[in-house]
């Protein structure tokens, strides 16, 4: 692959079974039940990988055999932030890994007059400024709404280096746009596609993720 993502990007190990999962969710003939199931599987791996980038401290525990185990403990608290609507599809996967995690929501829509992303709604845990944020949006295309969402988080006092942006499919254009603006945050992605087409859809992509997940496509 000629494309080398910038160092802020954490690409999941491109294993065969991950490729098999993305093949299923890209296939237009995949039924919704399968789409949801295999998306959730990828999301769980994304979250598992994202959490690996949080700080830890050493911790020693005693096991039932009476011996010590040299382990670790996580430092700092986390919260999820989903960019509505598609980002909410990732909450299930997040909860399977982080049981009772707090989840904030952001609604961003394209402003009809300016054609720019506009923030319509944001609701976060009150102490979000002290937390690590897992920002959830399944597709990173132009990066427009992601940038708006990150700006919002920064407005609420979240430190840029404490943001992990999780997505299933990204592209070089979106990565470049986000990284240029926020070089301290990290992007965790399952696959990087070739680029954007003339309609600014990810190519080859998988269509509208939210519609396929929530069943609102025709």
């Amino acid at each position, binding site marked *: 692959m000629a494309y080398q993502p910038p160092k802020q990007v954490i690409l999941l190990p491109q*294993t*065969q*079974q991950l*490729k*098999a999962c*993305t*093949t299923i969710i*890209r*296939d*237009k*003939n995949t039924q919704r039940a399968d789409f949801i*199931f295999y998306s959730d*599987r990828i999301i*769980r*791996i994304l979250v*598992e990988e994202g*959490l*690996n980038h*949080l700080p*830890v401290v050493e*911790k020693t*525990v*005693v*096991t*039932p*055999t009476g*011996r*010590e*185990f040299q*382990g*670790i*403990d*996580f430092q700092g608290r986390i919260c999820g932030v989903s960019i509505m609507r598609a980002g909410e599809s990732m909450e299930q996967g997040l909860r*399977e*890994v982080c*049981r009772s995690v707090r989840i904030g929501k952001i609604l961003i829509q394209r402003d009809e007059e300016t054609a720019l992303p506009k923030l319509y709604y944001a609701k976060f845990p009150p102490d979000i400024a002290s937390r690590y944020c897992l920002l959830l949006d399944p597709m990173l295309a132009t990066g427009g709404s992601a940038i708006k969402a990150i700006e919002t988080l920064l407005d609420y006092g979240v430190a840029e280096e404490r943001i992990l942006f999780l997505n299933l499919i990204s592209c070089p254009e979106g990565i470049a746009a986000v990284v240029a603006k926020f070089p301290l945050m990290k992007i965790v992605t399952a696959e990087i596609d070739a680029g954007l*087409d003339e309609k600014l*859809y990810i*190519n*080859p*992509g*998988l*269509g*509208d993720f939210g519609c*396929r997940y929530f069943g609102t*496509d025709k």
Partner: protein
Amino acid sequence: MKDNKLANHVIAAEGRLPWYRSDGQNCDCYIVGIAGGSASGKTSVAQRIIKNLNVPWVVLLSMDSFYKDLTPEEVEIAHRNDWDFDSPNSYDYDLLLETITKLKQGRTVDVPIYDFETHKRVPNKHNTVYGANVIIFEGIFGLYDKKVLEMMDLKVFVDTDTDICLARRIKRDVAERGFDVAGVLKLYQRFVKPSYDNYVYPTKRNADVVIPRGLENLVAIDLLTKHIQRQLQERKMQSRWDMARMSAPEELPSNVIVLEKTKQLMGMHTIIRDINTSRHDFIFYADRLATLVIERALDELPYEARTVQTPTSQTVHGLGQKVNVGGVSILRAGGTMEIGLRRVIRDAVIGKILIQTDPSNGEPQLHYCKLPPSLREDNTYIFLMDAVIGTGAAGLMAIRVLLDHDVPEDRIIFLSFLAGPHGLHTIARAFPRVKIVTSYIDSVLNAHTLFLEPGLGNFGDRYFGTENE
């Protein structure tokens, strides 16, 4: 031909001790063949031997199951009572030999069910017989076929006076089959007696032991039983304790895959190992960890290129899983991985093998196994699941069970949360083509408790909440 509810089912009153050597290879099981005339008391003698032996995992195999299918014309003759069921040609010796050969090797077999109404094998039905340490095979031609004879460890001929046999036969056929005495005698004169004189009685010379007077001869049966017991005693083996005492190299076998020590993995291990972790948390993190182990194991399967169209009509050259995956959990603790398995393979077929350790000697015992037939299919890989591989004794037994059920060794992937070098080497030595995926290695195996250290205690107890407070 008689109803015999005991026939063709393994009688298992208690767990089955290892029936294989520490290199994983099966020891031949012990086969006793019993022949004798019709109504001579073969089955009764066989049952008495089983009762006297008092060992579990014995199967009584009846030669009646191996009658040949009759053609429609032959069935008509049979219904007129003109068919000679007492001819040595009435049996399917090829199938019989195949069945006994597989049983002797310790493999699972499907014994046909013969329907005496239609004189055909019941289609698509059979008795699956697995796990016998001793096979007692009985039939009037039990000592007839040369190749079948070669399979036997002990050959017995029940030599009951023909008058007594006839009297029993009349009594039985009149009472149980609704025959009249004349009908019984007709068959006896035409078929039973000539066949006995010409074919059955001469097989007496193939016998190692002849029991005169059948079941009445308690002394002879007692001697036989003692002989069999002595033979079985010689074959007995001790495996688990020896395994713990054997030294294992630090370096892991090449077929072992250990998950990468990421922060998350270390964090989860810290939680499940901590003696103070609540069961609530233990279960949550065990399930999460299981999911990662399963995901890792999936990467060991074969994949093939698959091209699909996206909803935006783009072509994607992706991959597709080439094979199916079935799970087999080693109960009790291996069952804890099933949640992880279902998170990744929603509708995975799951077989179960219950293996418990005898606390008095550390030996594994097989108590139960239920494996779906689809596990044997060509395109199916088996994820064999256990929580901890300590000595490797339970894993070795479980893999042996799968092989006995015709699952090829290279299609087994053995998964665990935790493993130690002892167990891994034990399994790898015996079954080098089985891949092992585990999330962590603890290198100390306590030879007294057989727990890994630092370990995590008894995984099943902690997960299911059955530990002593």
